[in-house]
């Protein structure tokens, strides 16, 4: 039993910490979010130069040979700084599909562009009718010679305005919600028939609605076996859940720190408000929610390699924990900061908004509770 980090892992944390402390303070982040692009390609380049985008790939694939713990470390620090750049979308999701399900040829073709920062990816899976059910697909891919023709619509695709490449789920057979018949494809966002409409999300990011109209892809676009994509999708999205858990831990850690500090300095009735027992107990509850979230985040990141049932329980359990804790810590941080907590100027509200968004991504508390109880 050992929960300590290796020397390399500590070095990785130190290097991302110092980069973000130098280059990603809250004012810089605000400028990035308000810019026309909505993200910083220059920052992305620095992530690549520092090897952050290579961290979870094996050395054979050109990576640094890390795994989920390295991703967890990065994501926690990204959470602390509310980084908007598409690490989860590109490295964890697209990288995960290529790593877990891609052919050697696909890995050779695409992973180098992820690692060197030249290609941004995202994962287009949600559909308006499907809620959080990854198999609920109306988008279809029909066999067309050696390749496929894709038709359909994907909703709230995060990071899509910045991406050149998409990983897309589509139904190649079966009924609308069947587990069988789901396939995973690589699609160029610039391919004929792909159209996007972009918009901002409440957490300061960007997303797109994407329409696929007779989009032709080759046989080499299919990741894994035709119609057998759902287990792969579940595995990779659980990896994303593990990463988002770490991001949420970073957000909550910063909120708790800021709230305790504020309550020590803000005076009302002649004393710091942190002297009031009712607020002390509230902050203790926030602290415990944070610690429980750290534990679940470690747990899920250590169990991603286990069998499907164990992995699903770990991921769903972690998502439930961070969903509930994130809501509680977010709401109470705003409450204890009073009016200041409501402002756009203070970072508190921005962490709260991000935590709210994380709860929705890949299924909220109710969805994951159900998933957990079905796997248990």
């Amino acid at each position: 039993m050992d929960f300590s980090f290796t020397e390399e892992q500590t070095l990785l944390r130190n290097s991302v910490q110092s980069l973000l402390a130098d280059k990603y303070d809250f004012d810089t982040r605000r400028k990035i979010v308000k810019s026309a692009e909505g993200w910083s390609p220059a920052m992305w380049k620095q992530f690549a130069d520092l090897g952050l985008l290579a961290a979870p790939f094996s050395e054979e694939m050109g990576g640094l040979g890390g795994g989920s713990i390295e991703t967890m470390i990065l994501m926690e620090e990204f959470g602390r700084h509310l980084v908007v750049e598409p690490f989860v979308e590109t490295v964890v999701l697209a990288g995960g599909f290529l790593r877990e399900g891609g052919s050697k040829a696909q890995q050779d073709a695409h992973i180098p562009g992820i690692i060197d920062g030249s290609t941004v990816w995202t994962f287009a899976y949600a559909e308006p009718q499907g809620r959080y059910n990854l198999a609920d697909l109306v988008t279809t891919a029909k066999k067309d010679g050696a390749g496929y023709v894709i038709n359909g619509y994907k909703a709230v695709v995060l990071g899509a305005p910045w991406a050149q490449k998409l990983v897309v789920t589509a139904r190649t057979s079966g009924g609308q919600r069947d587990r069988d018949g789901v396939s995973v494809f690589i699609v160029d966002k610039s391919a004929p028939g792909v159209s996007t409409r972009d918009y901002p999300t409440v957490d300061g990011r960007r997303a797109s609605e994407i329409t696929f109209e007779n989009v032709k892809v080759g046989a080499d676009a299919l990741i894994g076996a035709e119609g057998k994509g759902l287990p792969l999708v579940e595995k990779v999205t659980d990896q994303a859940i593990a990463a988002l858990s770490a991001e949420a831990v970073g957000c909550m850690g910063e909120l708790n720190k800021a709230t305790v500090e504020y309550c020590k300095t803000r005076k009302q009735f002649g004393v710091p408000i942190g002297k009031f027992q009712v607020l002390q107990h509230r902050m203790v509850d926030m602290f415990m929610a944070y610690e429980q979230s750290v534990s679940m985040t470690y747990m899920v990141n250590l169990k991603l390699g286990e069998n499907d049932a164990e992995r699903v329980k770990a991921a769903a359990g972690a998502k439930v924990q961070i969903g509930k804790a994130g809501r509680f810590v977010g709401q109470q941080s705003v409450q204890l900061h009073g009016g200041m907590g409501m402002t756009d100027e203070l970072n508190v509200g921005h962490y709260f908004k991000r935590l709210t968004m994380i709860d929705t991504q890949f299924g909220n508390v109710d969805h994951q509770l159900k998933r957990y109880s079905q796997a248990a």
Partner: protein
Amino acid sequence: MDMSFSPEDLAFRDEVRSFIADNYPKDLKSRRTRGEMTKEDILRWHRILYKKGWVVPHWPVQYGGTGWTITQRYIWNEENARAETQPLLPFGLSMVGPVIFSYGNEEQKKRFLPGILSGDDWWCQGYSEPGAGSDLASLKTRAVREGDHYIVNGHKIWTTLAQYADWMFCLVRTDPAAKAQEGISFLLIDMKTPGITVRPIITMDGAHEVNEVFLEDVKVPVENRIGEENKGWTYAKFLLGNERSGIAGVSRSKKAIERLKTIATAELLDGSPLIKTDEFSRKIAEVEIDLTALEVTELRTLAAESRGKGPGPEASILKIKGTEIQQRITELTVEAVGNYGMVQVPTGEMAGNDFVPGPEYGQGAAQNYFNMRKTSIYGGSNEIQHNIIAKMVLGL
């Protein structure tokens, strides 16, 4: 004890229902947030009700009230919520108006009540300061008497819609030597007076609803003081009591639950309506039961009021439970909407210009949830309301 409506009440309900149906501006129906409305839009329903003589049902008849019974006022609120009319701004009608007719002199009543009733004067509330939030009585804005005027210097914050205001009712310190609650006076300040600067505060949902107001050597005639010098805390507390009782928002929450049910019926989970799932239908039921309890609690409070008992510290129950319920409904609405709840709907000048995906009912769900976090902070934070009940009701 009797909770049912009499035939007269039912006739009254039909009358006001058809009045609202016939007179509420149709084009305001689609606009649900103030961020999407101009100043004149916000005032339109107010002006219509003023013409009808129904703008202040809660005021004494001699000042423009309708003389309705408690039940009729309840029905009136219900019908407005049912039709989703724009709530009237409380600053003049529910806050400073009652202070003026209760504590102001004849001259002040003549001068200020007509503008409040007609909507020609837009009022804002100069209470909170950067250092005086929950501990309101520690306010530092200073007013020094110089002949017929006070010279006011200070800094107010969280001033709702001050960007449109013609007047501000303002708590100022007139005796710095006195104990906190003593030495405060209640002034009415013309916002056009030189020395007043209004600076916007943008909240996390992107809206410009609140402001900072800076007062620098602002000259206020002594005749604009309500009541006695240094007795302003009495009037301020009277006003806060009224604010608390109005804050429950029961009828509006009922409507919000109805809307939530519509959303949960349209949203699908594995092909069937979300509202059909045990988890979600129980959550709706829970908040609905909480609201039912609050509704009857409010009616009990109103009934006591009609027997001459003013809104006492029990009004804090209405504030705490009312805001908790409002917040819970917005939280459940975000859950119901799912992925599309995360879309940022442009506010202010940007409103209406940009692409907003997803079903219309879901638009702005998360922003509304974020915005409503303010309700447990403003009007005396819910922690302060707990203190009031502990001290004044339980005697702890």
